[in-house]
């Protein structure tokens, strides 16, 4: 302002200088034009120091009436200066100076009343050192004493017509230019008071400073006021321009229309002013302004203004905001109208400070379109108090109330929006009515939500945080609480579907605000009923679920999500394939454990339930008082079958339970089972259960389950230790019959003949294929068929279709025994049974009672009683009804006994009598050593020796399964010289006895054996050795 005043003074002084030139002219005003011109040229150097050119000077009355004026043409002041745009200081086509004629004539005083410059070009220049080109007028002190007149500048009016004014200030890096400048300044100075009336218009006005570029076109300016004591300015300034551009380091106004009506009071001394009911019209907007303005010595401007606006078009108004602010808001489009009222602008303005602004903001039907959001906010009705501190981040909008629509959603809110020019903070309480379809775009693509929601939300986050979170689904930046009541809720993600008639949802962000250490969102869900479905297989119905979960990392779908869920239900029903389970009061936890290399969902699941009822079709049913599961899944989406895709691992702890197996009358009664199941292993850590009469305690593991289920190409292997007090093997075989078999391999295939179709009712035990199970048995007592065993120990192997009892040792009331047995079921009508049975110190009667079939193989055995050693091996194929296929029967037996009692005394007596063997009334056999073989229906007794007292008898023969026989007995050692032979033949119930020659007189005399006897002897040994080779 000082600078402007100074320039004004200099300019006025310059004008005075020019006027002084005219003084000389006035002296000769009564002279002719030529003389007047000479006088002007003569006296001008007394006042002007620079080179000057003057044209013709004439007196004028027309322009100056009633005073006299001097009209000088072509006045040029030339003052070259380095840096100046031109050597010319001023070039005035026509200069008119009006003098007070009365003063001039009476008092010889030159009093200038009026000065008119027409078509002038004025070039004012100040260099970087402060030197200027317009200080060319001599002061009174500078003037020499030869001046003929006193002069006084008492200008009442200055007029500029069509002037061009150029001011260049290199020191302050400023240029100002006025073109087509017309000015009419009327003033009356009395003492130190000036009564001024300024009218100004210009084609172009411009001001260029370092940080300010101002340009106005077709400017009309009018000031009517007064300056009191060179201090107090009081007047009204009016300015209109249809085209104003203002750039303060960035464009603020561009070709805008400006109208000012500023009643102003300003003290030049105090540099303070006051605006009263000022109006600023900017384009279509009217701003009423009032208040105080003060300019400090350091240039600071203090404002205390009050403003009101008419209705603003928001999108238009925003273009007047600082570029920085516009950039901040660039992601948001506003459309609609707003009103600012009760605006207060207070504070200091300088290079670094801006005033504080307060305003009441009202909008109606505003539309706010945030680019990142799928829908705009419409019908935004805001009542807010704006509080702007442009010097800091303390900018806020207090939202007294706001309502808006968002697609089909509607919201109301109140609260505070802060840091308006920075990262806008939203501290709001929001209530809404939201269809969940409206938040579809905020969810991962694979998530679909449906339902109508009543929302109660409290937010405390910034827009930037919100946008980032919506972009990367990282909710940890956000602080918010929400309560939602969702009606007709449905949720779909990948293969997961959930639905509930109504759902209460609580949301806390971040989750750590609710649970220390948790990340993401903390969500509570309560409802009366929730239905869930996973894929096409798993269906669940949850009663009264109470779910609390923390979820984080939503981007990338469910499998990438960090989820920590605790779920409680009053009741849970689950269906998977043919499996149905329901559990009372289950507590479920679900924790995802995503990894960088994960190919799907990784999760840990625990279940703690009571009163579990489960059914697998009609085949199995389970009822347990408790179930605990600790499971993990690691999904590989590239795989299709269940085990490969989910790689489950689960630790099951089952309490007291009953299992019903279809077709078995007996229940499996479980005391407890604790086993670990995964794709590779089934590990029985602890299991105690009872199947019918059998009790079992089992430990061990099964491996290769997944591969076995996949294609049955690999063996599922098991190593299980089974201990038991009592085992009913018959029941267990019924339970496991046919496991793993299909119709194809279970049916009769490769049937050689169609003449013996298997009976439909036959359902033989089919040994599971594709498995390799070893059961290490330790049983106090076991029952198989009628076979009662004690201290049964050994290994039962079920391997790929073969059931093998390997070297089972046990004791029986009849003997100590060792059994190796093998059962195979390649097809139903061609089963295979083989056994290797060793009975040491067996009581023959007990043996026959225990294994009646031995009587069929060795009918002569029942003739004796006592202790014997018995080795038998047998094998046969079986029909589907377990009937032996006689054509396949192969068996061999070795029996050794001593001191045996003969039961069939009649037959014994008859034989000994016929062979002339003296028994002395004793019915005893001292020893026997026999080998028998069975081939098809032929049971051959190989030549064997029986010792009776001093007699030795060799016996051989054959019987057939139709109980016909032919035996030969040869007395090979006798105190008598005669060696008789006896043939016994015919049906067993009608045997014929006939003496004949000895058949094997030298079989037991190595030196006398013939070839046939030698062959028989060797075969007998071979038969016996083969049988005994397996005895342990």
């Amino acid at each position, binding site marked *: 302002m000082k600078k402007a005043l100074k320039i004004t003074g200099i300019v006025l002084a310059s004008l005075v200088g020019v006027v002084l030139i005219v003084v000389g002219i006035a002296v000769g005003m009564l002279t002719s034009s030529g003389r007047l011109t000479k006088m002007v040229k003569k006296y001008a150097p007394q006042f002007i120091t620079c080179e000057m050119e003057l044209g013709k000077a004439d007196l004028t009355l027309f322009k100056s009436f009633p005073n006299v004026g001097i009209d000088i043409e072509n006045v040029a002041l030339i003052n070259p200066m380095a840096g100046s745009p031109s050597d010319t200081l001023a070039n005035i086509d026509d200069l008119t100076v009006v003098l007070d004629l009365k003063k001039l004539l009476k008092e010889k005083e030159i009093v200038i009343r009026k000065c008119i410059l027409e078509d002038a070009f004025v070039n004012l220049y100040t260099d970087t050192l402060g030197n200027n080109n317009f200080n060319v007028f001599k002061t009174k002190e500078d003037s020499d004493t030869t001046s003929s007149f006193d002069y006084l500048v008492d200008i009442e009016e200055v007029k500029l017509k069509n002037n061009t004014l150029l001011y260049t200030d290199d020191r302050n890096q400023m240029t100002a230019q006025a073109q087509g400048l017309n000015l009419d300044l009327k003033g009356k100075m009395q003492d130190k008071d000036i009564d001024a009336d300024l009218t100004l218009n210009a084609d172009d006005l411009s001001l260029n400073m370092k940080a300010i570029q101002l340009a106005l076109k077709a400017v009309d300016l009018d000031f009517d006021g007064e300056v009191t004591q060179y201090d107090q300015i009081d007047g009204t300034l009016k300015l209109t321009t249809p085209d104003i551009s203002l750039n303060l380091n960035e464009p603020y106004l561009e070709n805008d229309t400006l109208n000012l009506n500023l009643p102003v009071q300003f003290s030049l001394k105090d540099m303070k002013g006051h605006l009263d009911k000022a109006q600023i019209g900017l384009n279509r907007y009217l701003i009423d302004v009032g208040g105080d303005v003060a300019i400090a010595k350091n240039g600071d401007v203090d404002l205390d203004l009050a403003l009101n606006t008419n209705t603003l078009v928001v999108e238009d108004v925003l273009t007047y905001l600082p570029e920085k602010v516009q950039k901040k808001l660039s992601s948001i489009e506003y459309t609609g109208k707003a009103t600012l009222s009760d605006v207060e602008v207070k504070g200091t303005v300088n290079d670094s400070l801006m005033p504080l602004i307060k305003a009441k903001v009202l909008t109606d039907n505003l539309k706010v379109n945030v680019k990142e959001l799928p829908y705009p906010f419409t019908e935004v009705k805001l009542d807010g108090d704006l509080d702007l501190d442009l010097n800091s981040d303390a900018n806020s909008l207090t939202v007294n109330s706001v309502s808006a629509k968002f697609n089909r959603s509607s919201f109301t809110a109140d609260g505070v929006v802060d840091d308006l020019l920075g990262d806008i903070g939203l501290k709001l309480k929001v209530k809404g009515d939201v269809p969940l379809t409206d938040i579809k775009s905020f969810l991962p693509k694979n998530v679909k939500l449906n339902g109508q929601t009543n929302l109660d939300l409290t937010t405390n986050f910034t827009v930037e945080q919100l946008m980032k979170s919506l972009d990367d689904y990282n909710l940890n930046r956000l602080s918010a609480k929400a309560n939602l009541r969702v009606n007709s809720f449905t949720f779909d993600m990948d293969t997961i579907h959930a639905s509930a008639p109504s759902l209460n949802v609580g949301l806390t962000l971040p989750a750590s605000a609710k649970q220390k250490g948790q990340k993401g969102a903390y969500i509570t869900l309560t409802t009366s009923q929730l239905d869930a479905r996973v894929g096409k297989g798993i269906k669940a119905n949850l009663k009264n679920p109470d779910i609390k979960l923390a979820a984080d990392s939503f981007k990338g779908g469910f499998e990438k999500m960090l989820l920590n869920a605790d779920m409680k239900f009053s009741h849970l029903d689950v269906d998977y394939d043919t499996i149905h389970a329901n559990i009372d009061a289950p507590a479920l936890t679900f924790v995802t454990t995503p990894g960088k290399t994960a190919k799907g969902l990784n999760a840990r699941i625990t279940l703690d339930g009571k009163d579990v009822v489960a059914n697998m079709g009609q085949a199995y049913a389970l009822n347990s008082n408790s179930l605990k599961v600790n499971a993990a899944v690691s999904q590989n989406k590239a795989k299709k079958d269940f085990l490969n895709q989910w790689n489950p691992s689960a630790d099951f702890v089952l309490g007291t339970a009953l299992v019903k197996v279809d077709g078995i009358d007996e229940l499996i009664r479980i005391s407890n089972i604790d086993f670990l199941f995964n794709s590779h292993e089934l590990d029985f850590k602890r299991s105690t259960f009872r199947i019918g009469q059998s009790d079992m305690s089992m430990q061990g593991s099964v491996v290769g389950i997944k591969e076995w289920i996949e294609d049955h190409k690999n063996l599922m292997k098991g190593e299980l230790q089974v201990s038991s007090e009592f085992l009913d093997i018959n029941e267990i075989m019924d339970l496991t019959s046919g496991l793993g078999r299909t119709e194809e391999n279970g049916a009769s295939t490769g049937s050689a*003949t169609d003449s013996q179709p298997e009976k439909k009712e036959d359902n033989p035990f089919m040994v599971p294929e594709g498995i390799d199970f070893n059961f290490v048995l330790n049983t106090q007592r076991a029952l198989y068929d009628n076979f009662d065993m004690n201290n049964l120990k050994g290994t039962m192997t079920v391997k790929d279709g073969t059931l093998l009892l390997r070297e089972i040792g046990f004791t029986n009331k009849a003997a100590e025994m060792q059994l190796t047995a093998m059962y195979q079921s390649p097809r139903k009508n061609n089963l*295979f049974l083989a*056994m*290797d049975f060793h009975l040491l110190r067996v009581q023959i009667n007990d043996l026959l009672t225990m294994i009646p079939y031995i009587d069929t193989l060795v009918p002569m055995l029942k003739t004796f009683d006592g202790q014997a050693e018995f080795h038998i091996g047998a094998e046969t194929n079986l*029909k589907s009804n377990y009937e032996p296929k006689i054509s396949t029967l192969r*068996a061999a037996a070795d029996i050794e006994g001593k001191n045996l009692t003969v039961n069939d005394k009649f037959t014994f007596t008859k034989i000994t009598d016929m062979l002339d063997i003296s028994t002395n009334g004793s019915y005893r056999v001292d020893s026997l050593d026999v080998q028998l073989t069975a081939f098809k229906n032929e049971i051959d007794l190989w030549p064997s020796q029986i010792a009776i007292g001093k007699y030795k008898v060799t016996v051989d023969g054959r019987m057939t399964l139709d109980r016909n026989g032919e035996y030969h007995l040869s007395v090979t050692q006798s105190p008598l010289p005669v060696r008789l032979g006896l043939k016994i033949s015919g049906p067993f119930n009608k045997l014929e006895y006939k003496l004949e020659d000895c058949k094997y007189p030298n079989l037991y005399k190595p030196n006398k054996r013939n070839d046939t006897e030698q062959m028989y002897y060797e075969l007998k040994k071979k*038969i016996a050795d*083969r049988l005994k080779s397996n005895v342990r």
Partner: protein
Amino acid sequence: MKKLLHIFLFLFILFGFAACHKPTEISYDASMLYGKWQEGSVYERYYESLIERVLLNGDTVHVNGTTWDEADDVTEEEAQLFNWTLTGTTLKHEHVGTFVMVPKIYTITMLTSSHLVYKDDYGKTHHFSKVE
């Protein structure tokens, strides 16, 4: 009487020499047995060389004969194994089982390219026809 004595002496000498003459031993060529023989629904196959089979208990055995009875719904693939030797007319079968060895001794009474007849000591005779 003397004449009668001479006749008796002649016959004694005649039969005596005849008795001293050792009867010719019949011996069959084992290769005649090679192939598949059938007796009703019963088949026997005699191999020229040993074949390898694995018993159900895992033991590997080498045998040269198999037998099966289709009347019992048993196929050749499911046939039972035996080893055979032929010495003169004595045909010995040693049937090989998982835990047992069951020998059978037969005497061949006829062996041609198409027929095989053998019997055992109890007079049971088997008549086979060659089918392969």
